[in-house]
């Protein structure tokens, strides 16, 4: 059969690609592609929003976990005879790596620094309400509960706080959030694939006569399939691109707002993360589009 094959030069290949692209675009106009682009977009918006949320909370969680400290507040009413001795006693506890004394004035200036512009209400205070304290650093975050218990036994302590419990809660919540994000992503992938598949099915149906003739005159399977695969890909990419634009615009607004009113929230706003997110979402949409066309091409285009 090899003598039957015809020589195809590059120019012809280019023309063929242009022709197949043209066919895909014509199909996009004829079939309800805009509807499927919108549906794909809605799916991708859902995935993106969950992903953005999960990524940010994970970053916050990681930061908090790395900073687990015990803060020991000193009783302001009972005179503590020797703060230095108390500090040494804490330092002597197993698992403690560092003890730092923070005077009430220092605590206030730290708070001002942390609050930034939002800390305006701290300026006019008549007296400093903050107690003196020790910041106790630990070798391992999970020791926090044990160390806190030991510290309570010392005299002159008004309160001991440590973030471990709610950090634990946060880690659990993050796991759930990531699970939901994964589920939403799966649903979105299935939903987007099905809608693309349906569009391609209509497209195949609209062009069934052309397809029949193509088969009879000896067009290759690839030649017949490619426009439909391209159509699915275009729908997937267009939908996810629109979703990305929408979510990115919203997110940039959110970042700006958060930084101006609550700058202590460590929201991720660097361009590298954003670029990765855009590429990821568009790739996800493209995958949904490809999967959708593959389903229909296999089922309805028996070449």
């Amino acid at each position, binding site marked *: *059969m090899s003598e*039957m*094959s*015809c020589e*195809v*030069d590059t*120019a*012809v*290949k280019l*023309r*063929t690609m242009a*022709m197949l692209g043209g066919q895909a675009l014509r199909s996009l106009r004829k079939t309800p592609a805009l509807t499927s682009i919108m549906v794909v977009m809605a799916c991708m918006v859902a995935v993106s929003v969950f992903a953005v949320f999960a990524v940010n909370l994970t970053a916050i969680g990681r930061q908090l976990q790395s900073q687990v400290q015990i803060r020991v507040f000193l009783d302001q009413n009972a005179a503590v005879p020797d703060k230095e001795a108390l500090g040494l006693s804490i330092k002597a506890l197993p698992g403690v790596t560092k003890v730092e004394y923070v005077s009430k004035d220092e605590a206030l200036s730290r708070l001002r620094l942390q609050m930034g512009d939002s800390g305006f209400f701290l300026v006019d205070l008549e007296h400093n309400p903050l107690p003196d304290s020790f910041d106790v650093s630990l070798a391992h975050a999970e020791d926090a509960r044990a160390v806190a218990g030991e510290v309570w036994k010392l005299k002159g302590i008004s309160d001991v706080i440590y973030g471990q419990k709610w950090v634990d809660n946060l880690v659990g919540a993050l796991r759930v959030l990531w699970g939901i994000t994964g589920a939403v992503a799966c649903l979105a992938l299935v939903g987007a694939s099905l809608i693309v598949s349906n569009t391609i099915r209509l497209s195949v149906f609209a062009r069934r*006569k*052309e397809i*029949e*003739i*193509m*088969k*009879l*005159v*000896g*067009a*290759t*399977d690839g*030649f*017949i399939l490619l426009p439909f695969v391209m159509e699915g890909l275009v729908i997937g990419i267009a939908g996810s691109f629109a979703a990305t634009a929408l979510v990115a615009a919203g997110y940039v607004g959110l970042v700006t707002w958060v930084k101006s009113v609550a700058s202590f929230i460590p929201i991720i706003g660097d361009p590298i993360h954003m670029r990765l997110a855009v590429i990821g979402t568009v790739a996800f949409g493209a995958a949904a589009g490809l999967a959708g066309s593959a389903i229909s091409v296999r089922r309805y285009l028996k070449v």
Partner: protein
Amino acid sequence: MVKMYGVTRVYAGGVQALRGVNLSIDKGEFVFVVGPSGAGKSTLLAMIYRGTVPTRGQVWVAGRNIARLRWHEVPLLRRRIGIVFQDFKLLPDRSVYDNVAFALEVIEVSRRDIAKRVPMALDMVGLAHKAQAMPDELAGGEQQRVAIARAIVNDPFIVIADEPTGNLDPDTSMDIMNLLCDINMRGTTVIMATHNQLVVDRLRRRVVQLDEGAVVRDELRGGYCGEA
């Protein structure tokens, strides 16, 4: 050119379209396949362009067993076979020229070759002057001519025609037959399924008669109904 050995085709549901058909068609022959509706004529033709494969037996076309063709070889076989149907199968939104050119575009023939070969094919079927017309502006016979031009534009070695005159009046049918005879005169094998007694009796070519999927007559220079 075309050889069939004990070809049987059973469709899903148990319908036997062909039963043990043996047939040999040489290069350059003109063969009518006749028989009542449901006799298996279309299935027999479809075997040749691998529209279907035998359940039992073998079909050889141009020295190849069609059931053994790999998937990528099937289009290459079809490029050498011109197929014409009763319902013309033209694309209504393309001009006569574009309908014929379509057959070459989809097998990636260069634009220069298309510009050379399409006018030649249209000239051959006598429609050069209607190249820019749309199919629905043409009479039935003219539409069938466009379909024939599309079938021969790639210079096939076989033309398969499945009831090409089925929708046409007797005069137009004879025009189409003359055209198919011209194509045959140039060396192309023509295999045509038909119900048209007039053309079979007038042309006196080889007749293969099918009945309930079996060959009941194979006669050189035969008529529609046979000598009996």
